[in-house]
């Protein structure tokens, strides 16, 4: 009783401080435990930057070279730490430059808080200098957004923004602050937001659904589990492993679900989807019960939905109700947080093994190994292949680095051949497929996980979309390892042109500058290699180098990524060549 009273007194003792809106906003970040920001100043956000000047001891602001870089860096930070990534940008072009990263975070459920400056409230709607209606522009790609026009709105709005960004299915939030609200004074008190009446981030599990699911699972002859990033976001790695091991059910991961189960786990059947592994794709259409956890049946995972898992009863465990029955009709829908659902399901399921069923996967694995993997990672002739590079990186980093990949062929190869063993390790642009993601994201990842090796694996196309962030890496001496898998092509588009457009290579060949010289001009140590015998030594040298390092690897020009589920085909029609 006494402690209760004391606590109450303490709360009452929270006396307001008179602050400018700008400083109040900075104080909100401090109150929420933020330590890192990525941003770019400009006219309409100058009061906030001025307030930030006095908080250098508590907040580490990284000046990026383009606002898109700020969002990707914040995404990299968020994915590496599980915390909310924060970025600042000014109004107008600053704000619009954030949109790609926000859209990426929206599709990949990454908690982001974007603060944009805005023209003074009296000028709103008048086409003022650097005015853009970022609230309307960002609406389709944010979990929530809000325009602040008064200083006293700052604290409660920021508290809501943090709460919304990281609770439930996480996502990006944008707060637009007019310049007059930044300059105006207010009485600042910060109270964290703990609930919003119109928002229920954590659903209440229906016990009856758990029982229905358990019954299906216990009766299954050929059950298969597919898991996504929901496992990582809810921190359910341990629960997933327990479930898989007790139930004996083989499992496959979505692109973003990789690293939620150790790659070498005997029941890990590999990656699902268009360029995923052979076994999990083919066997999806053979299983009799499909248990999907923390994933949303993206079209790159399902292929043709009309023929997807048609022999299976589908159990879908998902925190976002709007994803349930959106693409695949479920037989048992469990609207729940993945960790909670798996924990509650575990005692209801029987301990089992499926030796014959698992052996079917092993047959497929063997086929893929012979037809594809061996040639990819141990080629005997020809130019360096992307697969062998990634395989070596996995070896050299003891499967324990934070791997940041961009978008395209090199991304699929990276995800196929890096053997993830820890969470917060697989950072890539999944849903949006944003070329240019990896270089800035690696900056955020390294700041978020300073004691781990962070390796960015990027194609020559994607690298040139955000290479200005080498300036950020140089300025802050961020020791990321950058690998360019350079084939002088937009490789994935070229592959499609080869396979589906009669080799008409329409605008996919790139004539590139000397990337090692680009790096050199940014003060980043660099090397270019093109011979197989130099590969291992070059990778070792890069990993042992103390600062940032760029390794330009000239790879096979017309390599194709297989297996492949052609667009519109069934997952079981996956092609091995």
């Amino acid at each position, binding site marked *: 009783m006494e402690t209760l009273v004391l606590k109450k007194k303490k709360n009452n003792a929270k006396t307001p401080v008179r602050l400018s809106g700008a400083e109040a906003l900075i104080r909100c970040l401090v109150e929420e435990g933020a330590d890192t920001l990525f941003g770019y100043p400009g006219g309409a956000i100058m009061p906030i930057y001025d307030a930030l000047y006095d908080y250098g001891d508590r907040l580490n602001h990284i000046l990026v070279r383009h606002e898109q870089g700020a969002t990707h860096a914040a995404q990299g930070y968020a994915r590496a730490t599980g915390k909310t990534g924060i970025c600042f940008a000014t109004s107008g072009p600053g704000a619009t430059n954030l949109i790609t990263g926000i859209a990426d975070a929206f599709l990949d459920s990454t908690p982001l808080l974007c603060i944009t400056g805005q023209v003074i409230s009296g000028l709103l709607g008048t086409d003022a200098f650097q005015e853009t209606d970022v*609230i*309307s522009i960002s*609406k389709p790609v944010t979990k929530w957004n809000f325009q602040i026009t008064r200083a006293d709105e700052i604290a409660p709005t920021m508290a809501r923004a943090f709460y919304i960004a990281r609770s439930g299915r996480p996502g990006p939030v944008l707060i637009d602050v007019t310049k007059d609200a930044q300059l105006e004074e207010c009485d600042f008190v910060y109270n964290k937001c703990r609930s*919003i*009446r*119109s*928002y229920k981030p954590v659903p209440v599990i229906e016990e009856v659904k758990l029982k229905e699911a358990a019954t299906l699972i216990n009766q299954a002859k050929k059950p298969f589990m597919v898991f996504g990033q929901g496992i990582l976001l809810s921190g359910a790695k341990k629960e997933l492993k327990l479930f898989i091991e007790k139930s004996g059910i083989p499992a496959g991961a979505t692109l973003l679900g990789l690293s939620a189960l150790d790659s070498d786990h005997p029941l890990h059947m590999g990656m699902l989807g268009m360029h995923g592994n052979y076994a999990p794709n083919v066997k999806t259409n053979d299983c009799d019960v499909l248990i999907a956890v923390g994933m949303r049946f993206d079209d790159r995972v399902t292929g043709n939905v009309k023929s997807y898992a048609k022999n299976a009863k589908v159990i879908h465990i998902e925190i976002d*109700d709007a994803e349930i*029955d*959106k693409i695949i009709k479920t037989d048992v829908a469990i609207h729940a947080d993945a960790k909670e659902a798996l924990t509650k399901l575990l005692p209801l399921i029987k301990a089992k093994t499926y030796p014959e069923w698992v052996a079917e996967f092993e047959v497929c694995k063997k086929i893929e190994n012979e037809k594809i993997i061996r040639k990819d990672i141990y080629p005997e002739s020809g130019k360096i292949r992307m697969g062998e590079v990634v395989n070596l990186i996995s070896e050299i980093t003891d499967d324990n680095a934070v791997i940041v990949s961009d978008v395209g062929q090199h991304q699929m190869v990276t995800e196929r051949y890096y053997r993830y063993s820890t969470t917060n390790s697989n950072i890539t642009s999944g849903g949006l497929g944003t070329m240019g993601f990896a270089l800035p994201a690696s900056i955020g990842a390294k700041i978020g996980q300073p004691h781990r090796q962070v390796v960015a694996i990027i194609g020559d196309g994607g690298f040139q979309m955000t290479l200005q962030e080498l300036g950020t890496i140089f300025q802050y001496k961020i020791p990321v390892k950058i690998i360019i898998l350079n084939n002088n092509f937009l490789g994935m588009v070229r592959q499609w042109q080869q396979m589906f457009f009669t080799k008409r290579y329409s605008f996919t060949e790139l004539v590139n500058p000397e990337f090692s010289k680009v790096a050199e001009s940014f003060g980043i140590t660099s090397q270019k290699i093109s011979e197989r015998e130099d590969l291992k030594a070059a990778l070792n040298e890069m990993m042992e180098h103390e600062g940032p390092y760029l390794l330009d690897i000239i790879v096979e020009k017309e390599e194709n990524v297989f297996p492949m589920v052609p667009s519109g085909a069934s997952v079981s029609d996956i092609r091995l060549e």
Partner: protein
Amino acid sequence: MEKRRFTISVFSEDRIGLLHSITIIFTRRKLSIESINSSESERKGIYRYTIVFSSDYNMARNVTKQIDKLIDVLRAFLHEEEQIIHREIALYKVATSSFYNGNEVEQLLRKHSANIIRIEQDYLVIEKTGWKKETQALLKDLEPYNLLEFARSARVVVTKRWKRLHKNVLELEQEH
């Protein structure tokens, strides 16, 4: 899948820009909104939207869930046509001179259960509440009488299972 007409009832906070958030859920799927109505509900500060559109059932359900997911939306409910009682209101402005002869107007109003709500020297205003086909029928009958202006509202709806709908919104209030 077969397309049919659905109505969504949305209960929301009073938040600038929420209408935009709702409509983009339709526009991104290239779904046309047939009528939309928004007004304060019986609870102060809680707004009620009524949105009418046509689609197949799966799309209607997905759209409803995506609206329900919006942070400032308290709840969104999907209704089939037979689950609701709905009305629209129409106003017809007709030149007063058209009705000088006899009791035609009276007969017309009686036939359509419509009322005159305003009589001016030059024009009169007739009000008719009903389904669209009913307000449309009156419109057709009034055409020979020099119709000066016509306006029809969006649909307003109460559900046949009204208790449940109320209960959900009330529960939200009690929780906070």
